[in-house]
């Protein structure tokens, strides 16, 4: 039996998750080192390749939407996968950053025990995220969402020997479950109104009812809050600065780079497909949330002395920038949003992995204890500087282009000029803590034990350097990603194509 092309990336990762303990057992019997790690990394690479095949299939389909029914039943009741260009874009990002994190983990995690579980959970987490972006109905969506969430709770608290991961993991679990349950409640109400769980049929049913009733606004509010907890928008961000630093560094990179983006994706998909902007006018609300999120993230990041905590707060700020484009709701704004999602995954992933390289050598996360380490670990420091300059939005790097698009889109939308101003002011504030970070690392000659440190091992440097190279490359030559982001934004703004693909051209 041939496996359908839509399921291949997800099934590859799930199969890898199941086979990791088996391979590890065989590896122990054969006394061959690292076979488990090689297997996990190759699983991610194969999944990336499968996404690429899927991308070509989507591009060759008219309307650029592929629908696949999992069971024999049709769309209103059966389980449906719907893949459009936005889904493929996100899946590329998840599998790509997953590969980098897995390669980095080979040396970073080698001292830990229970690595079978670690790599299996890494695979299920990425499989859950890919499933979230491929899901075509709430049923499917919910299952993959929880797969992703449960894997990340356990991965945050992977090092159970210390107090911090346990506490952070429990806090993350309680807040994230609360968000998910709000979404589930909203789902049940939407199901009661429309009689279906399929996105496309739901959108059709809601657009056919004329007025936007208070119940629908209530549901929209529940959805925004629920996904907002996962995406760490401002009043619900408090779990993020605890959970992300407490996790092992490759997991921090994945959590900050892509898991919170899954929340943003869900917010975009639901709000653009089911609650069209022209009927529901949620743009101004998202705008206010966006300004609040970026301000809170940037102001609190100024205070931090913990390297990973600083980067975690900066993630909150970046989510604020990403929401600017959603608030504008135009083609340009969404292009900026999707492009910035890509760039932030690259930059924050690289920054967390570099921080991980320092922590691997120095075994401390305090910034003042890392003073001068940059002179002993030059490659890590240079790549970290590239990532941080990108996060500030320095011109030759990719962060500049996406921020420029985002703020331009806010400037061009009527009544959204304040959003662009807030974004620019916040970017200026953010430069303060990023630059302080770099200065502390390189300013003084290292003292004490730091003077003896060597550069990080090659399997850690390789993913970091590749990501830094991409940051520079897509800053100078953004055209391929920009075109892709433009088409993905267009597919988000064209719900008719999505709906007609699922309903079969009605």
């Amino acid at each position, binding site marked *: 039996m041939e496996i359908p092309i839509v399921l291949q990336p997800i099934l590859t990762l799930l199969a890898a998750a199941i086979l990791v303990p088996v391979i590890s057992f065989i590896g122990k019997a054969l006394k061959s080192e690292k076979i488990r790690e090689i297997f996990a990394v190759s699983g991610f690479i194969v999944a990336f390749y499968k996404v690429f095949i899927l991308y070509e299939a989507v591009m060759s389909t008219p309307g650029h939407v592929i629908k696949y029914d999992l069971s024999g039943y049709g769309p209103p*009741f059966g389980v449906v996968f719907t893949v459009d260009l936005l889904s493929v874009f996100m899946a590329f990002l998840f599998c790509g950053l997953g590969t980098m994190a897995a390669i980095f983990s080979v040396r970073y995690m080698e001292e830990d025990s229970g690595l079978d579980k670690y790599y299996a959970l890494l695979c299920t987490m990425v499989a859950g995220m890919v499933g979230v972006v491929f899901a075509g109905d*709430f*049923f499917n969506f*919910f*299952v993959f969402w*929880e797969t992703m969430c*449960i894997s990340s*709770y*356990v991965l945050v*608290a992977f090092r*159970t020997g210390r*107090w*911090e991961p*346990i*506490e*952070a*993991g*429990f*806090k993350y*679990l*309680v807040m994230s*479950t*609360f968000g998910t*349950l709000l979404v*589930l*409640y909203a789902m*049940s*109400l939407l*199901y*009661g109104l*429309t*009689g*279906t*769980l399929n996105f496309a049929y739901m959108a059709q049913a809601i657009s056919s009812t004329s007025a936007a009733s208070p119940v629908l606004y209530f549901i929209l509010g529940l959805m925004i809050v629920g996904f907002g907890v996962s995406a760490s928008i401002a009043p619900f961000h*408090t779990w993020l600065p*605890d959970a992300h630093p407490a996790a092992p560094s490759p997991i921090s990179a994945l959590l900050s780079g892509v898991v919170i983006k899954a929340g943003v994706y869900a917010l975009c998909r639901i709000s653009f497909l089911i609650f069209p902007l022209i009927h529901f006018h949620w743009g101004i609300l998202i705008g206010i949330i966006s300004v609040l999120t970026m301000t809170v993230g940037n102001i609190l990041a100024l205070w931090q002395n913990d390297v990973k905590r600083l980067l975690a707060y900066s993630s909150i700020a970046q989510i604020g920038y990403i929401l600017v484009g959603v608030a504008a709701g135009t083609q340009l704004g969404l292009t900026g949003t999707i492009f910035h999602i890509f760039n932030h995954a690259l930059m924050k992933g690289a920054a967390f992995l570099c921080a991980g390289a320092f922590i691997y050598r120095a075994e401390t996360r305090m910034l003042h204890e890392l003073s001068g380490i940059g002179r002993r670990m030059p490659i890590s420091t240079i790549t970290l500087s590239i990532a941080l300059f990108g996060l500030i939005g320095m011109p030759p790097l990719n962060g500049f282009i996406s921020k420029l698009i985002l703020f331009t889109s806010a400037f061009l939308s009527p009544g959204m000029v304040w959003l662009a101003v807030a974004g620019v002011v916040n970017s200026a504030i953010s430069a303060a803590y990023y630059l302080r970070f770099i200065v502390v690392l390189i300013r003084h000659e290292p003292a004490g034990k730091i003077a003896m440190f060597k550069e990080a091992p090659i399997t850690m440097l390789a993913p970091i350097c590749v990501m830094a190279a991409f940051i520079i490359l897509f800053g100078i030559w953004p055209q391929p990603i920009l075109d892709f982001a433009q088409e993905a934004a267009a597919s988000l703004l064209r719900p008719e194509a999505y709906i007609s693909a699922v309903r079969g051209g009605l």
Partner: protein
Amino acid sequence: MFSEVNWYLITAMILCLIGVYGMVIKRNAIRIVIGIEILTSGIHLNFIALGVAVSPTQIVDVLAQTIVILSIVIGACVATVALMFIIQAYRHYGTIDVRRLRRLRW
């Protein structure tokens, strides 16, 4: 028209509110997990009741029951992970009072 289904929906909402209360106000970690479970149960009741309501015929919609069964399984996973965290926290602190878990800056 105030149909029979509304009683179920109101009960479900009350259950949800009790669950949220348990999650937000209570300081005992086990009670927080119980709050999560009550909130989940409220949502399940909502689904089942609406599954009866949306069906045009007398037959109950199977979709709602399917997602509820699935959600029960997922809820069990979440509860397991949460209780695992509580056991670990108890080993570190000797208490399950979340006010004592204060070393994180909230």
